[in-house]
Each structure stands twice: as C-alpha cells, then as structure tokens.
C-alpha cells in the first residue's frame, strides 16, 4: 500500500492490443506519476500481470484502484503492502573496467551481491543482479565510482507472501 509517498499496485488484465496503454493513460490523465512498471503474461497466456509503483498517498492509491477496477480489461487490481509482499527487480549494469584492479574489485562486489557476470572484455564488465529494490539500489551505488556505461532495469514485480493472491479479498 502507500509507503511514504509511493504506493504499489498489482493489476491483472486481459491481454489484448492496447491494454497497457489503457492502463498507463489512466494513471497519467488522473495526474499520477508512474515510477516503475513491469508487465508480462502469466501462466494463462491471455492474461497479463502489471505491477506499478506510483507517487501518491493512501488516498490517491485508493482512488486509482477504484478507477482501475472500472476498466473492462481489468480482471483484478490490488494495493500491496510492501511489508506483506515480496518485491523483486533486476538490473543489468555495464561498468567501465579498463584496469585489472578495477575488474577484480567489480567481480568481488558482484560476488557479494550474488550478481552474474554476463559479459566481460578487457575494458568493461556487464553484470546483472536480481533482488529487492534496496539491494539493487545498493549495487548501483557501489558500481557508480567505476563508471557506469549503461544501465537497464526490469521494473519491480511483487507478489504477496503466504497463500494470498491477487484474487483474494483485500
């Protein structure tokens, strides 16, 4: 749910052309700013799960939740409390590694983070890390002094702990 000034909302939609833009446009025209979005199909290929993290307090979160539920495409929409939910995202970072010392240090840090070295050459390394958002932030912070050449993030996905699902009552 609302955590400080952001909230996390999980949305299950019917997967047809234009549905993602329908959802994101609803956020923008109601004055919401999306910080993170992740979307992909689920075990049923005609359904897509979208996780959105947006700016706003609890009141704002509840308003957009009701607006979302009005969309025909929306099968289910739920505010998630970060304390009761698992959050994961992935980052791939391309880091400058033009000396052996730098490369060694990057590999050391990567090992601590259980990151994967995906690609290596004599002047740079490409590393991916998966984890909770704060772990990702910490990893990016540690890579910054080496010189980040490029960075790409997956967006945050969430799922509730225990047996609760997006279909369970709030």
């Amino acid at each position, binding site marked *: 749910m609302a955590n400080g000034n952001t909230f996390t909302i999980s949305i299950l939609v019917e997967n047809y*052309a*234009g549905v993602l*833009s*329908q959802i994101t*446009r609803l956020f923008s*025209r109601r004055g919401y700013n999306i910080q993170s979005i992740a979307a992909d199909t689920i075990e049923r290929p005609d359904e897509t799960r979208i996780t959105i993290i947006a700016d706003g307090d609890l*009141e704002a979160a*509840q*308003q957009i939740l*009701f*607006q979302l*539920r*009005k*969309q*025909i495409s929306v*099968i289910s929409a739920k505010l998630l409390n970060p304390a009761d939910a698992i959050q994961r995202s992935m980052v791939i970072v391309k880091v400058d590694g033009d000396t052996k010392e730098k490369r060694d240090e990057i590999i050391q840090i990567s090992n601590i983070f259980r990151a994967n070295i995906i690609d290596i050459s004599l002047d740079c390394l490409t590393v991916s890390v998966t984890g909770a958002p704060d772990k990702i932030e910490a990893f990016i912070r540690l890579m910054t002094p080496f010189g980040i050449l490029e960075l790409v993030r997956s967006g945050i996905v969430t799922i509730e702990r225990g047996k609760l699902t997006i279909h369970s009552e709030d």
Partner: protein
Amino acid sequence: MKLTGAQIVMECLLEQDVEVVFGYPGGTILNLYDALYDYRDKITHILTAHEQGASHAADGYARATGKVGVCFSTSGPGATNLVTGVATAYMDSSPVVFITCNVASNLIGRDSFQEIDITGVTMPVTKSNYQVRDVTKLADVIREAFAVASSGRPGPVLIDIMKDVTALTADYEFIPKANHAKDSHMARLLQRKTNIIAYPEPDREAIRTVAAWLRASERPMFLVGGGVVSSGAAPSMRRIVELVNAPAAATILGQGVFRYDDPMFTGPIGMHGTKLSNLAFVEADLIIAVGTRFTDRVALNPGKFRDRKKIVHIDIDASEINKNVRVDLGIVGDAGRALEMLIEALGSDFEKKSNWVAPLLPETRKSAYRHESNLLKPDEILRALHERTGDNAIIVTDVGQHQMWTALHFKFSRPRQFITSAGFGTMGFGLGAAMGAKVGCPDVPVIEITGDGCFRMNLNELSTVEYYDIPVITIIFNNGTLGMVRQWQTLLYKSRYSETTLDRGPDFVKTAEAFGVAGYRASDLEGFRAALDAALKSGKAAVIDCIIDMDEKVVPMVPGGKHLNDFLID
C-alpha cells in the same frame, strides 16, 4: 446463418430494439450503410448536417428516453467530429453507443486516407471502447457495448470496426436481449465486471448507520444528482424527502427529480444555486448526497464543504466516493435500491424533522444586479414558456447564462425533462440534443433554449430538423455577447470585454427561413407569446429570436474556490 459484418451490426441493433440511428456516411462505413439500406424499414436513420450534431442527437435521445442512443460515423474526420459529443455524454453519464468504421486492416497504421486511431483518441472519454479486427467477435462486442453503456453507471461506448471486417462473413445467431446474460461471452463478463455492469447491493450495515444518523440529526439535507434520474429513483427520492421532511437541493442534472412546487425542494445548488440551497447546505449538520459527484461547480471549495457536518455519499460508481470530497460514509449501489433500504431502515416510527430550512428563506427583494432595460427578461420568457407548455415540454439547453437561467427559473416537474450539457459544458449541444429528444419523444413538445453564441456554433442542424420535420422550437436568448463570459469579465476582469461581443451576423430569423424553418423575432413579452403560440400551433420547427440585454446577469453567483454562502452577487 452466415452474415457479413455489416449485416451482423444491423441484426445486433435489432436485438437491442434500436429503432433510430443518427449518423453520417463515408468511405470506410459504406458497407454498414449498404446493409442499412436493406433494414431501412426497421431502423430509421437520421442523416445530420455534421457528425457532431449526430453525436449530440444520439445523446439527447438517450437522455430523453432512457434508452441507449446510437450514432454512426465514418473514419478519420468523421470519427474525430464525434469526440466532443462522446465527451459530453461521458461527463453526464449518458448511454450512447458510437459505431465508427476504420480503414481496412491492411491499411491500419500507415497513415492511410481518413485513418485515425479513434479508440486511442476516445479512450479517456468512453466507459469502454473496442476495435473490432475479427468478424467472429463482432456480435459479442456489440452486445457487450450495449450492456456496458446502459448498465451500472451509464456512459458512452465506442466500437471501431475495420472496413474489411464489415465485409467478411461469420456465423450469426439472433439472441434476444433478454437472453444475453445467458450467452457465454456476456455471462463471463457479467461475472467478472459486476462492479460496472451490474448493481451491487448497498451495504445493509451502512444503511442502518445512515438511518441512525438521520434520527439523530437536527438539520439533515439531501443533495440529489443525475444518478437519481438514471436510476429511475425519483419516486423513492421524493418519498424519503417527505418522510424525513428535510430540504433537498439538486445539481443541474438532478433537476426534475422534485416538482418545482415541492415544499422541501430548494432548487439548484452550487455556483449558480439558489440562495436557499446554498445557505441550507452550509447550515445542515448531515448531508445525504445521492447520485452526484461533488464537481467543482457544486463543491466550490472542497475544504470548507465538509465544515461542521457529516456527509453520506450514495453512488453506483465506487470511484466517486472520496474522489472530490472526503465523506464520512460511502455507500456503493443503485440509488433507488439504497433509498428504499433507507426508508425501510427508518421504520414507521420515524419522527419527521421540523422544517429547519424555512427560517433561512431569504426575503424576496430585487437584486442590485437586476439589470434595468425595456428588453425581454430571461425569467419572463421562461415563465411565459411554462405558462404555455405546462409540465409537458422537454427543455433542452446549450451552455452559458441561458442554461443557468433555465435551471433557476423554469418550473421542472419530472425527471428527463431538462436536457443539458452539465459536466462538459458543451456549447453547440442544444439543437442536436433537442432533435434527438424529439425523435425519441415525438408526442411531447421539445423546446431548445440557447444563446446567440451557442446557436451559431451548430445551427447547421436546422436543415436536419426541417428535412425530417422534427418540430423543435428554438428560443434564442440573444444578447449579442457571450453572456456568461461577459458576466465574469464584468465582475472579475474589470469590464475588459476581450473577444466576447458578438456584434455580427447572422440574422437568425433570415437564417431560419433560409433553412426552410419559420423564424420569429421577439422584443417584448407579447411578441414572444405570439411567436411561441404560432410555433406551437404550426407543429413545425421554429426559431424565436428573443432580444435581451447584454448586461443581464445570472444571479446569484458564487465564484469558484469560495464557500457556498460566499455570494459574489445575489
């Protein structure tokens, strides 16, 4: 049986008992019009002068009859010309199904001639919209569209069909509307989207709470909106107001829920509400708002709006609860059902409230802002109109001063009698909407009240009313200015009349005559009565150009951001 997509559209309209379609043909929608040719005995098509006129006509038809209005248009500019009409219907929750055709699927996305992404364009102003790329899904989409438009909180829906889909064939089976809920596609939808196409049962516990609050309240008041009209809940609303003996104010779309002479009805509320409605609202200790959404024209200052009172909000749309104003209790459900439950919860031993609002009744005095002139007075015209039409006529307006005068001074007596663009404030709405209302209610006089600015926007539809002999009587409150904007300029912009004076043509009498419609000019009350009598007697469309003073004002007025009792003029 195998039918083309275009034939499936016609059959699906018949499933819905659609008798009339307003529209305008064009290249991509040719197949639909070709099929319509075979169905012309069953479906009447009204060819308007402009797609915008068709969109407002379908909307006016829906508002007057409570049925779903239907509008056809071709792709590209035909489709974009609908957009104002779609938005108008959306803001006032009016059930209209718009059907557009798009370029063929092999031309989509290539900036083809008259191509537009109309589902993208209308996404923010439709309850739902659809692009049909598969003829086998066409019938399901149309059935769904009508269900979505007409149920729950009503609203416009747009279906965009690619041209090739209208020519391809598919198996079609006629399913009467009564059996739609059992059809597999609709059954699944109904199960999944109960919140928007069904009527959630109001929470019984919450209803009991409201009953308790009503018993304890000293100064309860009802605030009634358009939802009460679309729910058909006016009889319940009248009953509960009488039972509680509480004052009731209505938003613009709530006019007609109460008879004008209902002793507890205080009139419109908000920026141009009556003094009594606005003062009573401020004094009330409990507000029960039904089917209304606290727009910025009513909740002028959302912060002060809640001062020293409890607010209960009953609405079919859960997203309206706490959207504009934080309320103490929200109840999601159909207005009529919720009110019946509330009446039951109040029980037979409910003690009527004393009439707490009577002492607030302001003394009748002449407003200092009452403009002196020898010309016709807006309220005089409206009184004279009511004298002639009684409770019978449907009154359709455009937007501006004449609209607010009509809301304040015309004596409405039943729901669906007042048709106006309240939420979107669409100038140019009136003539098209009046045309649609008259087509839907041919036995009732339909009067369009407009201003010279509004009328000039879409008067092209005079050709439609003349051709189809749709006897709409247009009364122009002609003050030679954009009166409402001028009023703001006078009061808030130091009388700097920037681009509001309409010291120009056309001559509306001659214009009407050029369209083959009788034109009258009235500069005094006698002249107006004579013109109105002649127009009503003729049974034909007519235009009555009433000359009024450009400095007449809508009184009272509370500017935006102020509290309801903070009148700028009264």
